């Protein structure tokens, strides 16, 4: 087999070596672009960081100025026989270099909050996680049973799904003000936004998953003497469990995407509060570190749940690769 057909075979699993290579590359490539832009001085770098103000009185060491402005000032200084300012090309403050963000990963956790009432980063993160957790758990407690019932009984589906179908198009953040009015300014409205963002999709997805269960399994159970409740709890529920678990993983990802909006509602809190605060102080390395942290937590949870899923459902056929 030639190498191109190996890499670009239509709907064939990749060999493990290629898979690992591409997985690493998918993270490495964006990082490489970031490094290029940050460390190669002639790529972008629209600013000049002043190292010596020279004869320009209003320049200060460490100041970032536009390249044009710098050259204008340098020219003026030369005309007036003042000492020439010196500086290095630099990127804007909102694009910190990879190593700065990498240090921020550590220093963000060790930096003491500016005020006593403010929180450490790990406290902010933990707060965010609890908001997600409660929003998602409350949604699942109602959404999963309702979804299963909708998928099993046409009558329940007809009664609920048309309205839910309509409601899911309403953007969850639109309910922010209402949620604050009803639930106060603390975690209540935030959890409510996560709930609204998750619940309606959840019911529809779970009912769809339930409907995909092979009818032949239900018929087999009927001919074996299963009735009503047993049909539901001994066939439908275990039958959809692995697929339901996969749905939950996807839905949890969606819940995370509602986090930032949710935390801006009422009193800003959690990781969102940290990000806005750090942006205000222009600590963009911390901002990037925090954003990446959300991604890391998200993907780590998902990988963990995926690994757990393999243990939970030994009857699932695991295809290829692993």
């Amino acid at each position: 087999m030639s190498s191109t057909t190996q890499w670009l075979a239509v709907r064939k699993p990749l060999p493990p070596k290629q898979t690992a290579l591409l997985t690493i590359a998918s993270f490495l490539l964006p990082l490489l672009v970031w490094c290029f832009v940050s460390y190669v001085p002639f790529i972008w770098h629209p600013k000049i960081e002043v190292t010596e103000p020279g004869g320009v009185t209003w320049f200060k060491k460490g100041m970032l100025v536009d390249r044009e402005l710098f050259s204008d000032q340098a020219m003026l200084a030369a005309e007036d026989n003042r000492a020439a300012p010196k500086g290095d090309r630099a990127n804007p403050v909102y694009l910190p270099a990879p190593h700065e963000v990498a240090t921020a990963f550590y220093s963000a956790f060790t930096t003491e909050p500016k005020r006593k009432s403010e929180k450490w980063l790990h406290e902010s993160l933990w707060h965010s996680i609890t908001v997600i957790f409660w929003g998602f758990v409350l949604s699942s407690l109602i959404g999963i049973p309702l979804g299963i019932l909708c998928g099993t009984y046409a009558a329940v589906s007809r009664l609920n799904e048309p309205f839910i179908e309509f409601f899911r198009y309403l953007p969850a953040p639109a309910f922010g003000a209402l949620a604050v009015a009803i639930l106060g300014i603390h975690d209540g409205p935030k959890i409510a936004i996560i709930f609204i963002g998750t619940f309606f999709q959840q019911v529809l997805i779970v009912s769809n998953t339930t409907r995909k269960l092979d009818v032949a399994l239900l018929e087999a159970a009927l001919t074996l003497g299963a009735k009503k409740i047993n049909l539901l709890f001994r066939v439908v529920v275990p039958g959809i469990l692995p697929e339901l678990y996969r749905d939950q993983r996807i839905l949890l990802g969606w819940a995370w995407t509602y986090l930032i909006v949710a935390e801006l509602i009422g009193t800003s809190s959690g990781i969102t509060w940290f990000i806005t605060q750090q942006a205000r102080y222009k600590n963009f390395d911390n901002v990037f570190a925090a954003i990446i942290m959300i991604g890391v937590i998200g993907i780590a949870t998902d990988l963990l749940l995926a690994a757990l899923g393999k243990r939970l459902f030994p009857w699932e056929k695991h295809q290829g690769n692993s």
Partner: protein
Amino acid sequence: MNSMELPSYLDQADPVRERFDRLKQREIILEVKDLNKKFDTSQGQVTALKDINFKTHRREFVCVIGPSGCGKSTLIRTLAGLESPSSGEVLLDGKPVFEPGPDRGMVFQGYTLFPWLTVKKNVMFGLEMHGHSRATAEGEAMEWIELVGLSQFADSYPHQLSGGMKQRVAIARALANKPRILLMDEPFGALDAQTRGKMQANLLEIWRNIDITILFITHDLDEAIYLADRILVLKAHPGEVNELIEVSVPRPRTVEQFISAEFLATKQRLEELIHPPSEEDESLPMHMVRMAKVGDDVEPVE
């Protein structure tokens, strides 16, 4: 094969005739009376079954055969209670059936083992539905699993089994409920020829050793003759009983009988019934045009 040399499929040797006489003395397990089934579809009403009448006796092996789409699955699903008849009735031990129940075990065309249960738990499923305690259910299930020769796979999941093994478990699962009749819808249709042959022999062995009546759907003529006491031949559009044939091949059945005179005579009759020379075949002849150059030295065309 020269049809002149074959006896009539109706000729029965004395032991065979005596066996049928005894069989007809036995109690009737399943009776189908004037059964009709129509489906409402977007293209209008489809008559899947028309005026079906037949009876099966205790411990009889009946095969149902017919062209694809003639209503075989519809018939067996109606007997199982998974479809309700448009008119007519199905009597089990003289009592009409309305819904699925464990007194009629079913083995389906596809694989319908519960993927989340081990072989043992699959076989225990029906027993537990009946309120057997876990311990008794487990004991009985293991006996049935042993009967189909899968003891060492009791704790395997269905996806770890071959197609033949899955259908054996399905048979054990249905039989564990001690049904009056076992309904089987092309259960070996998806298996390779060799496995199918083994499964047929196994099924006959099981049938000989326990008190069970079997209604078995197939479209494989050899399979029907090899297994059945009587063969119910359906014809399509609408699905009607064409003939109910008593198989004159003596029991016990062996693979060697596939070329016996009785076997071939019965097969010839089935072929006449199922693949009658139709006008369609003649009105749609194929035109062999040479689409590509072939070396005529290999085989001249004209």
